[in-house]
């Protein structure tokens, strides 16, 4: 972060980072997201849960306008980050995505060295004045990604040569290297084994101190473990949104209840 808004501790807990108003998404003829309204807090981990095809990933991809890359996708409604509409005509999605980083379902390191993978974002956004600054950013990001100790001796090795869990942490390091304010994670652990999953979850918890994290997950246990807030999506609707403990212990909606107890999903 360049200069995080410092508004005192009391405010910090209630700062709304992202707010969505009447968001609708159409994929061609399919109505994928129906009228979603949600406020996502800063420096919190928010989990999106729900059965497959419920639109949680689609909504996540709206937040950094990744859906722009799909021709047939149409988004209406407003999504505001820090009060600014990201679908405003003046917004350049390229600039937005530097501010809203994303980690994908499958680890997708570029076929480049570990160093170049992490340095890619800072390079294209011009975040480093010189080589030594870049080195610093790379080291800092890899440390934030909790992978520095494992790769510091082989920064020139290809990123594709790492194990699955390491690759995903590398991708997280790559995402935080552009100093985003929001970090979107689309089922970041679904391709990982339990041990790697545990490491990544631990990392997500640490990231909370600096970023607003939004994570889409299939696993309710994971949502319960890492998130403070949880949103439940069903058939394109945001059914329920609230504190994670409340959602899991005392859901208000019957559909949420059914999903939590395994009756739908």
């Amino acid at each position, binding site marked *: 972060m360049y200069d995080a808004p410092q508004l005192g501790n009391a405010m910090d807990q209630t700062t709304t980072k992202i707010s969505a108003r009447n968001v609708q998404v159409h994929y061609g003829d399919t109505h994928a997201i129906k009228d979603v309204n949600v406020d996502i807090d800063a420096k919190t981990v928010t989990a999106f849960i729900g059965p497959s095809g419920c639109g949680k990933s689609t909504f996540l991809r709206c937040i950094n306008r990744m859906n722009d890359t799909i021709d047939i996708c149409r988004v209406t409604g407003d999504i505001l980050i820090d009060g600014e509409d990201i679908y405003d005509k003046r917004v350049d999605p390229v600039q937005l*995505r530097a501010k809203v980083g994303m980690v994908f379902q*499958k680890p997708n*390191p*570029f*076929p*480049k060295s570990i160093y170049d993978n992490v340095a890619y974002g800072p390079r294209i956004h011009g975040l480093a004045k010189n080589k030594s600054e870049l080195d610093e950013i790379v080291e800092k990001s890899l440390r934030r990604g909790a992978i520095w100790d494992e790769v510091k001796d082989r920064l020139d090795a290809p990123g594709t040569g790492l194990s699955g869990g390491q690759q995903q942490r590398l991708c997280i390091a*790559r*995402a935080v290297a552009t100093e985003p304010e929001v970090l979107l994670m689309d089922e970041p652990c679904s391709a990982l084994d339990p041990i790697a999953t545990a490491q990544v979850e631990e990392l997500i918890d640490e990231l909370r101190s600096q970023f607003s994290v939004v994570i889409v997950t299939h696993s309710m246990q994971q949502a319960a473990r890492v998130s403070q807030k949880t949103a439940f999506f069903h058939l394109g609707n945001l059914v329920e949104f609230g504190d994670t403990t409340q959602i899991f212990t005392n859901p208000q909606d019957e559909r949420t209840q059914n999903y939590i107890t395994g009756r739908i999903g």
Partner: protein
Amino acid sequence: MSAGLVILAVIAIAIVGFFVGRSRALNSAGGDIRQLHSLPGYYGQAVFLFSAVPALLVTAVWLILQPMMIENRISDMILPTDIAEGSSLELIMADVRRISSGLDTAVVAGALSEPEIETLNLDNTDVRGVLAGVGVAVASDIKPNVLDASVAYRAKTAAARGYMAVVSIAIALVGFAVALSLTKPDYRARNVSEAAIKSLLVLSSFVAILTTIGIIASLIFETSNFFRMYPAKDFFFNLTWNPQFTGGSDLGIIPLLWGTLYVSFVALVFAVPIGLFVAIYLSEYASSKVRSIVKPAVEVLAGIPTIVYGLFALITVGPLLRDYFAQPLGLGQSSSSVLTAGLVMGIMLIPFVSSLSDDVINAVPQSMRDGSYGLGATQSETVKQVILPAALPGIVGAIILAASRAIGETMIVVMGAGAAAKLSLNPLEAMTTITVKIVSQLTGDTEFASPETLVAFALGLSLFVITLGLNVLALYIVRKYREQYE
């Protein structure tokens, strides 16, 4: 009996065998096909195969061996004194074959009778005249020994044909009988017939290998003949190409190789950037509507025969370049030039480069693009820094394949590059290539067994080796690349 008749007879026996075999199988099972191991048709097929295959194989071998053996015998009848200055035993034997087939024609035409031929000699008949009368021209005067040899050749050939007919038909009949005796309900006729079909399939897959062997053998054989007449060192290192009808030619490959590489280089300079950008635009930027128009149009470019490109170079591009560039700039007077051929060949290679690059660019997984866009990269940054580096081996493979195509291309350079072998850097000057010279040396009027003609085979071998090397290299690179994403 002619070979064709023998083959027909064998096939006729085999067809009869099919029906006899089938009905015998049915009879042996008392008309109930459930008693048979295989369907009745398979028993018929088995008999067919037993009758036809061995007999036809023997016939084929016989047809190949017979002329060799007979010629071996006959050539003893030709004395060294019969071989004129500048001639050879092979040429005389060619005459012998010619005269004996001419005698056949004469008999058919009624100009000679069989008894006349037996007593034929040069004193009582004007053999040359008789042969000319039936349309067979014999070049030189016929010597007595040559005539005798021809008559003997004819007699032996006829006798051998007779033996062949007897042997082949006998083998067919034996096969027929054996197969029929095997035809019993528990005989595994289907397995026999399927084994035969399978060997046919195997044989077909040999054709590809035989083609390669044929190419290599013919190239190497004639090239070694060439190097016997013309030193290999001169061929590879001589800097001039200047064939003479009278002999004493300079046949150095260097100027041709230079022309080939220069034209190919110019072609690639045009084709690679354009083809690559077409592929990038189509796979990363174009709307589906643009793609649906441009892609087929590029494919049309790929389907156009090279002769069309050649004509385009000859009647349009060449004169255009000459009138608007070469002459005003004082760089050349000829409409055929390296630039003409290179430019047109570049057009030909655009679809080649773009479709191969399109394949490799599409093979880069979408997750790579997502990763890059997710970090806030623009499309061009993603293409330049993620997709192209990831697809690089595949693209390099495509460019190498395109280079191999350019080097082996013939019609465009024949019609667009010129015929003068030169070592020059001026792209507006006419130069020539290996393929142009292969065509001109092999379609010229020079005698086949002269170095001026045979050099084409040495050029062909060089071309084959160069393109083969490039192809193998490209295949290796592309294969390695595919493994990366599988």
